[in-house]
């Protein structure tokens, strides 16, 4: 089929108007074609098989900004939105206060619209803020080295397990049974063709086999409980394996950092540190390890150096680990550092600072513990899991979680995360500084009503 009809001149959209994102005019195009020495645009694309050239598309015609923004605002408004609703949902993503500084810096096009800093002289802003990010993560976790960021928490966790296999030259990964199954699922997808065996070990780490590459655990775990990081790390080391802790960064404003217990690799979802929930992404994975393991670290790393005049500057470094150089022998195929989300984290940590990070952690702790103790008093509800926790805890309900959450939603409350596959009729409730006492009290009376109505 030869294309004949009505293809609009480039740069024009329906109605004959030039598109605001394409500046070329008809005169510009004519001049460029003449300079190239062709009479029509089609001369430039003769390599495309003629019968397949210029397919008809079914996508709608161009929508102007005025009507499009109204249409998409209406689409967004169809969602049940935390903020309009009280939200007690966590389990991997958390609703926190984001100070105005984060949004303000994220308006800087110089950060937003830059590429990966391959020309360091023209990217010192990206590089120095990335170095701040690495520093903040090391300080928060008390670790020696952090990379510039991974895709998200679960992929960071999977990469950590693969790194442990490379370092120990073993191929068995032990994951504590209290970890979220979604972490294991992502590792399974990452390791599907690498002859890696994934085993689940009991919560106390007992009978840990001695041929494992790592003991990997989540702390706080799927049930909100803080694991015995010291003991698990000891068990890993006794087996000649590495200890991998997947943590919640907010918790470490209050709780001991994993580095204190000798953990070898720390991963975390970075979203709680100033990143909007955005239905699950874009987030940033945090990844920290020991200096001695740095050559097996996946992802981008920013390092400090000097210029020819002796001034301090920053560059991407240790690049020989990466895919663009080592190709099929790279430590990972990752090419991003999710830099912009890392910038949000860097501005968030800078803004909260020492006191703010403590305050947020403390508010989460106080409110979650208040909520837990009050819910435990409601007839029919119980807290099935024992142990120190931070801002999440498991609640067993008198009715199914689906029913309970449906009833809560009618009261403009988004209930907890369903973990009934682990403990029957049980949800994981998360309380952060965003939940006022009023919201918590409303939740408790709602649970009382719902439980009593059976």
């Amino acid at each position, binding site marked *: 089929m030869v294309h004949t009809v009505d293809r609009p001149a480039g740069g024009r959209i329906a109605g004959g108007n030039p598109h605001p994102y394409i500046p070329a005019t008809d005169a510009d195009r004519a001049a460029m074609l003449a300079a190239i020495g062709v009479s029509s645009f089609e001369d430039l694309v003769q390599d495309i098989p003629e019968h397949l050239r210029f397919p008809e598309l079914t996508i709608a015609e161009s929508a102007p900004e005025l009507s499009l923004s109204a249409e998409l605002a209406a689409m967004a408004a169809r969602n049940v939105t935390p903020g309009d609703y009280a939200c007690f949902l966590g389990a991997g993503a958390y609703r926190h206060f984001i100070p105005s500084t984060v949004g303000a810096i994220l308006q800087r096009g110089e950060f937003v619209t830059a590429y990966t800093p391959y020309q360091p002289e023209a990217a010192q802003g990206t590089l120095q803020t990335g170095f701040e990010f690495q520093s903040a993560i090391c300080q928060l976790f008390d670790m020696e080295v952090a990379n510039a960021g991974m895709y998200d928490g679960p992929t960071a966790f999977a990469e950590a397990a693969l790194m442990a296999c490379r370092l120990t030259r073993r191929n068995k990964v032990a994951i504590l049974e209290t970890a979220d199954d979604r972490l294991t699922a992502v590792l399974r997808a990452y390791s599907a063709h690498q002859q890696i065996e994934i085993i689940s070990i009991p919560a106390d780490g007992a009978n840990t086999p001695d041929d494992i590459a790592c003991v990997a655990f989540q702390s706080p775990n799927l049930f909100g409980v803080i694991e015995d990081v010291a003991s698990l790390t000891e068990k890993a080391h006794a087996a000649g394996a590495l200890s991998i802790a997947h943590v919640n960064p907010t918790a470490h404003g209050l709780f001991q950092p994993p580095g204190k217990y000798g953990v070898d690799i720390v991963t975390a979802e970075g979203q709680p540190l100033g990143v909007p929930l955005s239905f699950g992404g874009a987030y940033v994975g945090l990844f920290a390890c020991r200096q001695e393991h740095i*050559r097996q670290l996946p992802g981008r790393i920013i390092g400090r150096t000097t210029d020819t005049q002796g001034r301090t500057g920053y560059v991407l470094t240790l690049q*020989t680990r990466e895919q663009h*150089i080592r190709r099929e022998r790279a430590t990972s195929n990752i090419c991003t550092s999710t830099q912009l989300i890392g910038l949000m984290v860097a501005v968030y940590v800078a803004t909260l600072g020492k006191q703010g990070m403590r305050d947020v952690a403390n508010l989460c702790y106080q409110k979650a513990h208040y909520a837990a103790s009050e819910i435990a008093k409601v007839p029919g509800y119980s807290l099935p899991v024992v142990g120190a926790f931070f801002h999440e805890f498991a609640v067993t309900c008198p009715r199914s979680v689906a029913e309970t959450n449906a009833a809560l939603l009618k009261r403009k409350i988004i209930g907890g995360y369903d973990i009934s596959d682990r403990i029957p009729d049980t949800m994981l409730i998360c309380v952060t500084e965003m939940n006022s006492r009023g919201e918590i009290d409303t939740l408790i009376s709602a649970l009382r009503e719902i439980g009593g109505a059976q």
Partner: protein
Amino acid sequence: MNPEDLKYSKEHEWARVDGKTVTIGITQFAAEQLGDVVYVDLPAAGASIAQFAKFGEIESVKTVSDLFTPVGGKIVEVNGAIKDNPEKVNEDTYGEGWLLKIEITDAAQLDGLMDAAGYESHTAG
């Protein structure tokens, strides 16, 4: 520029023979091709290695290359100073930039290597 008293391999390693002990490193040509060397990954002393086998990796800022030994035998010494000062490979390629000392199993292996003139015509190609 390549010392006359050394032997050379096609993979751009040099060998200095001293009785049964052979000191090896990479050639000036290889060092220049790599650029600034930033890291050298070397095996532990004590291991045995076959002639022309891979024994490590050498990295510059933006390249990584495998290292192949020009002679086989037992690794009797590894240049530990290279770990902290990899730039020695560029600065003193045939001296402090050495990488391994190998106790050669069979001196006949040396016959398979080039002399300086042979290596120069190899790299000129």
